[in-house]
């Protein structure tokens, strides 16, 4: 079981309370597809991903980015039971989508960078550490049902 300090809980809830999901989600996913182009392999039916501008303007990417962020929201609301919260999604990503779990870390790094650029100085080392710990637990939970 993951131990969360009161400070970490408050920090995570605070970060997500201030996030514009419709903006940050698309920004994080499009950044991932641009910075780590091999991740595009999972989005063959999304249309034009030819260059950075196309990716950033692609409505399918934007829609999916928002879905991902709402997925993270589930974790925020269930920090003490992320394993069960993500069990179904883990099976989906493994059995149906066949996503290499290493990719979860890539998008979580991109999300960290997007949150950092939005929060600026408020994104201190401690805030970063809390977010990274949270995302690491999500990543681990999502990888759990792979076999």
């Amino acid at each position, binding site marked *: 079981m993951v131990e969360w300090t009161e400070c970490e809980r408050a920090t995570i809830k605070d970060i997500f309370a201030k996030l514009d999901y419709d903006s940050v989600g698309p920004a994080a996913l499009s950044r991932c597809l641009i910075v780590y182009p091999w991740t595009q392999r999972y989005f063959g039916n999304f249309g034009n991903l030819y260059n950075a501008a196309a990716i950033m303007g692609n409505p399918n990417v934007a829609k999916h980015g928002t879905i991902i962020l709402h997925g993270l929201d589930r974790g925020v609301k269930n920090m003490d039971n992320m394993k069960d919260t993500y069990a179904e999604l883990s099976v989906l990503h493994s059995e149906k989508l066949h996503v290499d779990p290493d990719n979860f870390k890539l998008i979580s790094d991109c999300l960290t960078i997007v949150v950092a650029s939005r929060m600026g*100085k408020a994104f201190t080392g401690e805030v970063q550490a809390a977010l990274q710990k949270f995302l690491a637990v999500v990543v681990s939970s999502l990888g759990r049902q792979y076999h």
Partner: protein
Amino acid sequence: MLSKKEKELIADIWESLTPVAEDIGADALLRMFASYPGTKTYFSHLDISPRSAHLLSHGKKIVLAIAEGAQDIGQLTVTLAPLQTLHAYQLRIDPTNFKLFSHCMLVALACHMGEDFTPVAHAAMDKYLSAFAAVLSEKYR
């Protein structure tokens, strides 16, 4: 592989950061210590508390080296030769830590540059820092 445009972008960004080398470097180091406490083991001989003289001077050193490399990326192996020797035979920092530091440097850049740290700049910078780390560990074995 870095394109000509990416090399120019990287050189420009690091040139603009040289005046605040101390702050960016110290910020990246502090972030690394907070998120990856194991990295502190390499600094047991220094005072790495926030705003300490050691932290600022060390942060500055690192950023200036990265900035110098950025001015002629094609010559990284030549520019970094002395640092290669230092890291291989004296410091012997496990190279996985270079990845951790690079990530924290990217976060520091994102905080500092905000919207200007575009996905294209991010991609170029990630590639450059990976190349830098690879060259730095070339003499390890």
